[in-house]
């Protein structure tokens, strides 16, 4: 069993040993540069991209590592965002209360949805996660007390006493950076651990892992809850950034876009999800400058990425690295 204690070389490479630090250095320089030269608009854009990247990272843990395709992950982003919005509506603006409540709420929702969804496989899993997300979407729509389908304005960002001030866009951007980096490191370690290898093993051959004595569903459920919680954290940040929360945060289009980012970046590499999220947000920004009908370009692009872009951006980088 000694061989099993070290991840095989290919797996370590996938975890982004050399690329991931570069990604974060580039990101830090981009935030710094945007702050110094480009102005507040770009700082906010980068902040949004980092938050979206956090959600995509969460989904990659599930899709790339565990092979569980969730088409309802925007629901957890929405739960995190709504927790902040609803608490703020009742005058509870302290981040020390808002954030833990939001994270516990999204973890609890992920535990319930995961436990039910994991009874199914394949297409059924895709569809039941979609169904649960739709359920929450419609539930949010009928929350007439909290704005219904118009959404809810959040008048004050989470208040952390004097320690960090989210109202300052620079602080907020760096907070998102630190959170993204910490979550990435934590998930990368998780992915390299025994836990990660059980998930990968079950992805390749569920029956074999079960025969080896692993309670596969339990491992997957833990992954689902972790993923849902991280997505909830992204929701908390998103609500604070936009100072607004609406059912649209949970729409199935958002869930589909998250999946698109994961695949665009390259599944299973974690840092790929971050690249995919940035590519998506920046592409959306760029295309929507030329035309309001940016989806006319993005739709076919997505089809092409699926059809010919094996391995996404991370795969491309890996191939470039090999040539060198």
């Amino acid at each position, binding site marked *: 069993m000694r061989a099993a204690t070290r991840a095989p070389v290919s797996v370590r490479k996938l975890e982004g040993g050399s690329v991931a630090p570069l990604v974060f250095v580039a990101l830090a320089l981009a935030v710094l540069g945007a702050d110094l030269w480009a102005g507040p608009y770009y700082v906010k854009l980068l902040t949004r991209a980092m938050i979206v990247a956090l959600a995509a990272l969460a989904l990659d843990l599930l899709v790339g590592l565990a092979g569980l395709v969730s088409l309802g992950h925007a629901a957890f982003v929405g739960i995190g965002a709504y927790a902040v919005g609803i608490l703020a509506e009742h005058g509870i603006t302290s981040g020390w209360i808002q954030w833990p409540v939001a994270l516990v709420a999204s973890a609890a929702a992920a535990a319930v949805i995961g436990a*039910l969804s994991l009874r199914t496989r394949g297409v*059924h899993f895709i569809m*039941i996660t979609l169904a649960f997300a*739709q359920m929450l979407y419609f539930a949010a729509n009928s*929350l007439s007390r909290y704005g219904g389908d118009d959404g809810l304005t959040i008048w004050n960002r989470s208040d952390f006493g004097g320690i960090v001030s989210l109202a300052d866009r620079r602080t907020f951007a760096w907070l998102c950076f630190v959170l993204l980096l910490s979550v990435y490191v934590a998930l990368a370690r998780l992915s390299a651990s025994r836990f990660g290898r059980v998930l990968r093993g079950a992805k390749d051959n569920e029956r074999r892992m079960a025969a080896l004595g692993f309670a596969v569903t339990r491992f997957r459920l833990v992954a689902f809850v972790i993923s849902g919680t991280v997505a909830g954290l992204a929701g908390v940040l998103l609500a604070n950034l936009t100072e607004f929360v609406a059912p649209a945060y949970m729409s199935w289009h958002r869930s589909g876009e998250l*999946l698109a980012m994961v695949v665009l970046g390259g599944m299973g590499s974690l840092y790929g999800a971050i690249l995919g999220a940035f590519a998506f947000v920046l592409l959306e920004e760029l295309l929507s400058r030329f035309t309001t*009908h940016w989806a006319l370009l993005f739709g076919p692009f997505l089809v092409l990425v699926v059809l010919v872009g094996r391995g996404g951006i991370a795969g491309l980088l890996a191939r470039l690295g090999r040539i060198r």
Partner: protein
Amino acid sequence: MEPTLLVVQFLNGIQLGTLLFLVASGLTLVFGILDVINLAHGVVYMVGAYAAASTFVRSGSLALAIAIAPVAALLVGLLLDRLVLRFLYDRNHLDQVLATFGVILFVDEAVRAIFGPAALPYPLPPAFEWSLELPGGATYPAWRLVIIVSGLVLAAILFGILHRTRAGMVVRAAATDPGMLAMLGVDIRRLFLVVLGAGSALAGFAGALAGPIVAVQPGMGDSVLILSFVVIVTGGLGSVQGALLGSFLVGLADTLGRSFLTDLLRLLLPPAAANEVGPALASMAIYLVMAIVLLIRPQGLVSLRRAAR
């Protein structure tokens, strides 16, 4: 809760169910035969509605509008197969979901660019602007009856073909065990094209029928697509009988839930709470039904491949 209202809402549930069945039957067979998740099926329904609406407004002839819709839908369905779907036959479900999601983004946006974001006018022809008197004093709009009757007739024809003809037998066999059928010398891909074409035509027809009672606007296919997926997953993937069962279950759960759940809750909860919870629960009803069915029977109500497990 008067009995006449119950009858009307029951008919509404059946009407929604027949529309869903027209969309879901194609979706379930397409999945059954080549294991392809085709999110773009909702797009085809939208194409049918747009084709019918624009034909009707230009020509004034409802018959022409309803005849053109399935043809337009069929052409678009086959075009999408040639452009995108055929590259996805052997791919995993994630690739299929994403690529057809890309198709949805494109077509919805294209429709928005061409016809504008507002709903297209598709008024009811005067000949159908009357209501049927039901026993007990309630009335029911004629057009909805037309939807129910024509949907049920089509469903009967479909079942007749599937269960009484040789071609139908081959299709059913393909949905049950495509590998075996290919071994027996049937060209599965050609069969798939035929089924995809027929399914697209049915979905386009459903769009033409639904046009006057829903808003003909970009993205109108999305909600129907998701409902159809709920239908076929609840009914059992690949089974047309399951799709029929699932359609009526979903149609009835949705309409009856929306009209009676709040009243029912008032019996249990204080009125204010019932008014708050009722609509929320009603809009979740069909997903609850699906979750319950899947928990008890993960393979769906009608399972074709149980023997293979």
